[in-house]
């Protein structure tokens, strides 16, 4: 593995990790923008804009763009979160130059009115699709409740209303502010020629104009509120709990991930033995999400209506027990083993490696090898986990549930 780095005069950061034993290469444009960088008037614009980048440039139509990608056999797509918009492609090494050129083109999209109007239909279909996925819907609504008023509570998709009201002009303005070179990291992983990739990127991307695009960072402990949504036709109760946590810049994030695994890994965790093994809930999982300047622990639980109060008593009991008595050495060891093997397996794919590489640079301006992360996880002690619990008690949570109407 060899790490490479180059920063252009306009602030665009190029990084790469060359692995000549890989059969593929992956490239990603990590734009540091998401729903937290929106106002409520333009809520949903980051995600909508991600779609619009595929709609072509002054030179290419949407169909021509899609055809050009498909001619490389690329597995390409994009995703938008509260704080990042990432465009990526995994390809056979011989096609990396071509997909790199394509992404460079697309990063300066035409944003035509006609395409904007047509894509609005697709975005509204996506919003409708997620309404039919209560496990997703409940997390989205819990996030809004938890980050009550904080920008991280903005929905990534936006609402039907905010999307209806959004204009192409507002999107162009947002694009000009956020897709500045100094707000983008270009990362490559796998088998590729670094000099070649740089030579392709430097000239066209060097012309992009730097902009002030700093993000205001404020920590958020969470509202601690509780609410419930009803839909008569739902079969199950879907429960989401969120509590505050460390940021992506905080070294304690590894202890945070381990704590989440001890409490709520899919199997073998406290939630698993107390809730799933006993068939009181079919799903009970906790994850830790480190974000820019803040962070959150998030649990998702699904059970029958008849079990809700018992399940919530047990959940509170698990949180209380962790707060009062901590976690055991043995629990920590198992959690480490699971997280370490997941890390190794994920990073064996160029695409998996790309994501870690890009986000480490986005959040930390730092190159971390897989070994760095392995060492950091191994080094976490029971005391480190206890220190996290002391500051971020998972028992102080925000709760949002959706489920069927409650019979009185």
């Amino acid at each position, binding site marked *: 593995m060899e790490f490479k780095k180059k920063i252009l005069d306009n602030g665009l950061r190029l990084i790469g990790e060359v692995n000549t034993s890989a059969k593929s290469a992956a490239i990603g444009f990590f734009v540091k923008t998401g729903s937290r960088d929106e106002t409520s008037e333009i809520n949903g614009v980051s995600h909508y804009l991600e779609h619009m980048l595929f709609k072509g440039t002054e030179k290419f139509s949407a169909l021509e763009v899609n055809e050009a990608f498909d001619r490389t056999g690329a597995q390409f797509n994009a995703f938008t979160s509260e704080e990042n918009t990432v465009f990526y492609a995994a390809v056979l090494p011989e096609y990396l130059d071509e997909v790199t050129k394509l992404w460079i083109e697309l990063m300066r999209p035409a944003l035509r009115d006609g395409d904007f109007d047509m894509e609005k239909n697709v975005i509204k279909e996506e919003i409708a699709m997620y309404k*039919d996925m209560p496990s997703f819907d409940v997390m989205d609504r819990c996030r809004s409740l938890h980050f009550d008023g904080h920008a991280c509570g903005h929905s990534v998709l936006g609402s039907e209303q905010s999307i209806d009201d959004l204009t192409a002009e507002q999107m162009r303005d947002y694009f000009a502010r956020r897709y500045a070179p100094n707000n983008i990291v270009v990362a490559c992983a796998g088998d590729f020629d670094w000099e070649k990739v740089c030579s392709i990127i430097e000239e066209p991307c060097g012309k992009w104009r730097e902009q002030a695009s700093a993000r205001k960072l404020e920590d958020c402990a969470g509202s601690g509120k509780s609410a419930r949504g009803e839909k008569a036709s739902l079969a199950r109760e879907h429960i989401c709990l969120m509590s505050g946590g460390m940021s992506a810049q905080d070294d304690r994030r590894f202890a945070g991930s381990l704590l989440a695994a001890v409490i709520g890994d899919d199997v073998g965790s406290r939630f698993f033995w107390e809730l799933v093994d006993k068939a009181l809930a*079919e799903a009970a999982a906790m994850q830790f999400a480190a974000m820019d300047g803040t962070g959150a622990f998030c649990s998702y639980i699904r059970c029958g209506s008849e079990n809700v109060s018992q399940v919530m008593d047990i959940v509170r009991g698990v949180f209380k027990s962790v707060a009062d008595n901590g976690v055991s050495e043995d629990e920590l060891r198992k959690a480490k083993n699971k997280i370490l093997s997941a890390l190794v397996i994920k990073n064996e794919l160029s695409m998996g490696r790309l994501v870690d590489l890009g986000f480490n640079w986005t959040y930390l301006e730092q190159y971390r090898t897989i070994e760095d992360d392995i060492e950091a996880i191994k080094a976490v002690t029971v005391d480190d986990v206890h220190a996290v619990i002391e500051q971020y008690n998972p028992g102080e949570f925000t709760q949002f549930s959706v489920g069927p109407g409650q019979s009185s």
Partner: protein
Amino acid sequence: MAARLDKHILDNGMVVLGEPMDAVESVAFGFMLPAGASVTPEGFCGAPSVISDWIFRGAGDKSSRELGDALDGLGLHRAGSVGSAHLSLGAALEASNLSEALDLYADIMVRPSLQDEEFEPARQLAIDGVHSLDDDPRHKVMIKLREHFYPHPLGRSTIGDIAELESLSAEKARGIVKERFNLSQTIFAVAGKYDFDGVCRQLEGLFVRRRRKRQAPAGAVEVGSKGGPQGAGKYTHIDDDSAQVHIGLMTDAVRLVDADYYNARVAVSVLSGGMSARLFTEVREKRGLCYAIGARYHALKDAAGIMCYAGTTPEKAQETLDVITGEFNRLADGISDDELARAKVGLKSALILQSESSGSRAGAIGSDYYMLGRVRSLDEIKDAVEATSVDSVVGFLRNKRFEDFTVVTIGPKKVTTNT
């Protein structure tokens, strides 16, 4: 990249397959037990999903908790699933822990405790799984589609049926384990970093020497007439107050053993291989009808189909279905050289990209062996894809028109089908 394939057949008949991968530190393995949904006795739909939970609740000399802790201690990621033909048990993990993991999995398969008190929660979770499907219409429509498309019992739900799960007893489930956990018909596949001789010696010790008796093969599946479990029609609608109408559609395709298999795969790729493929272009890009739209080839050993999913708001459902079936039918009018070239490179690069994952390779070699009785090399597949031409694909499409569509919708509005 002439990959090596390791193969050995144990004395009890279990097939052991392996594909070594130089670039990885992980290993993935899977046991394919002939205990899938289609071979479950009539009246007990969902039994495999109960069993796949129950067998982890204690095995060998370990209690449920001890077994779970031992598996977790190895840091392995369980990858079990219930399919039409098989109940698969497996995991991905760091290579140095493989031997200990195989010891535990042998206990789970050969010496599960199957205690009465652990049966009830396993069954309850399976019942809950069926209830939960009602809150996931996108998943439910595809389960229903398979039920209606494949001849019974091939398409039987892998999730289960509530009434049938309620009538399943511990005694009955134990009988199913005894009959269907047949090691002589089990395929074991491993990919990644491993020592094949060591693996074979260990499996021989775990599964052969400890169990002298060779099991008689379990009875074959009897395949019924087409039309799904209730002899349902080609169109089934399930009323739901969902935001979208979830459309599942499926039509016949050649099986993996068929000479036209690669022509069919290329045709599906032209239809829905990438973002420039016809369904995405016509349904989403030009008309804005859907967010999620896609078709893929789906194969069992004895039947195969092309399955398509689309989710769209009620007022657009009819147009969506009409455009989709129109695109299926338009394929036989011809495909361009450029479409063929894109389909080929898409199929080939997907194959190579997947080959970097030990989990994908273990799954692929096991499945090939079951379907074909042998494992295709990546080169064989690439060459066969490369050998297709516009003429071969169009010839295949004209010879076998997509006339019959099985359609299932879930949502607030029905559609009208032409079939």
